[in-house]
């Protein structure tokens, strides 16, 4: 871990809806994740973990507050610049995988290059081998189990060789053997390559691999 912070969130508030239907998803979050740190966000369902990851990645603009990514104020950027920063610096692993349904597992990984992202030295095929899907490279998402879809999403995230990996329940749909495999991959990325990793999870096993656990409750870091 270095002294430099990869992610900084300052007084983040996210409010959905208005008047009677107003819902405060994040309520004054302050958070720093150092470069090269492996941290987990833990907390009950609905506590705001996913919303926080979306804010940190720039998918969701907070109602108030600021986010810095590698020294760049993400919340001050326009939509196109946020998109570019996310593409070039951050890999997102979604809770619901978010694979493109019309392309194969390989295509879902390779799509990042088509989007203009700079990619690492590993090819999509190699990454799919790494997550144990070498035999299902040509399968469509509809031909994969949930756990396999999750692993494709992880391979896609690793393809861009990102500085920061934000993962939302990355082991939620996989068996214990594959959970270990995925966590080994995350650990390698963190230890060998110095990637910053922030994982939202309910899983104590995942938390045990991380260097720091950040507890959340009712939209706040506790």
């Amino acid at each position, binding site marked *: 871990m270095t002294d430099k912070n990869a992610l900084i969130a300052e007084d983040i508030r996210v409010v*959905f809806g208005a008047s009677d239907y107003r819902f405060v998803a994040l309520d004054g979050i302050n958070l720093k994740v150092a470069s090269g740190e492996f941290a987990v966000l833990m907390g009950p369902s609905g506590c705001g973990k*996913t*919303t926080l990851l*979306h804010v940190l*990645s720039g*998918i*969701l*603009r907070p109602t108030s507050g600021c986010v810095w990514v590698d020294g760049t104020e993400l919340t001050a950027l326009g*939509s*196109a610049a946020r*998109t*570019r920063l*996310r*593409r*070039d610096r951050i890999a*997102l692993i*979604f*809770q*619901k995988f*978010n*694979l*493109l*349904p*019309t*392309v194969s597992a390989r*295509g879902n990984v390779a*799509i*990042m*290059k*088509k*989007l*203009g*992202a700079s990619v690492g030295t590993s090819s999509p095929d190699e990454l799919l081998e790494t997550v144990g899907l070498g035999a299902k490279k040509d399968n469509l998402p509809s031909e994969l189990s949930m756990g396999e879809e999750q692993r494709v999403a992880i391979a*896609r995230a690793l393809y861009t060789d990102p500085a920061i990996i934000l993962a939302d329940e990355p082991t939620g749909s996989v068996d214990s053997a594959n959970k270990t495999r995925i966590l080994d991959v995350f650990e390698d990325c963190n230890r060998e390559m110095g990637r910053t990793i922030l994982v939202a999870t309910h899983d104590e096993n995942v938390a045990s691999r991380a260097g720091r656990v950040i507890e959340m409750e009712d939209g706040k870091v506790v």
Partner: protein
Amino acid sequence: MLTPDMGSLVISNLYRRKVRSAIAIVAVAVGVAAPIVLAGMTYGSINEVLDRIRNVGADIIVSRTSNPALLGVRTGVLDESLAVKLGTVEVEYDGEIVRPAESVSPVLVWVAEFDGRLQNVYGITPDEFPAFGGPMADALVAGRLMDGPDELVIDDRLAASAGLGNGDTVELMNRKFTIAGVVRAGAGARLFMRLDALQGLTGQNGKVSAFYVKCKHPGYVSVTASAIENEFPGLNAIAMGALADEMAEGMAGLDEFVGAVTALALLVAGLVILLTTYTVVLERTREIGILKALGASRAFIARVILSETLVLCVLVAAVGVGLAFLANLAIEFRYPLLTVETTPGRVFGYAALGVAVGVLAGIVPVLYAATRDPAETLRYE
């Protein structure tokens, strides 16, 4: 617009939704094919009529002012004996007095039912046929010209359509005729019989509808037409070329008709593309959100959707052209006497117009897709 990298994504999207893509392609292709077929039938019919006029070997048609014989009205309004007088008309040309007429062919035009359809029948003296037929005069493809009063000559398209040939017997105007010969289609009418036979059959003895005057020199044509009109009040003498041009001008309104129907067909095609593209955008809201969440720029999203629309439109154009050719073949098979004129330029033009309309119609949903906020689709997952 469509890079090789994007190509597989575009094609896989279209292929994955193949039923929807196929229905959209066929629906819009009909919109592209319809104007091609309609224009082909309209201009084919017009040009065939004009060609029939242009192919007549004579230079001038002389008819009653109020009665344009070529339109096929049942008429015998001029005395056949006028032919002699027309043949002796004199004009001044290049300072000399000349008799310009090489031949004067009296023709009686009648309309009669043949093979279930109304057809113009030309009554003409067989000896005059070479002068009348002009470039088509040597177009006898079978048999000979009509000799006797019970003989007919028909053109090859009518022969093919009715399944008739040389020597066959047919009934026309309640009388039996033998087909003496078949000529290549293209001059005057499709049916010819002897002038005296048609006159007798219609009770128009000594009467004709028009005279076709062939001049000895092309330079004589306009002065001869003027001289005939001056000398014979009540007669109309028009150079054949001018008549064809006049008729073409009179039919110019059909351009607007074809244009209006084309615009309507393309409007419907455009709306189908608009609906299809909008449906694509709606059903792929989540995919678009995913792509944007992964870092796809607005331009990338726009290019993917617009490329799909473009590929769809190109397929539409190809299928539309194919459908048009099939429709033309079906029409020509069912109605062999109907001329469908399909020129490459017109086919390419309508196909290109269909692609352009489709792509334009796709732009609004594409812009909508490109500006969607990824958080809208992903934040509640």
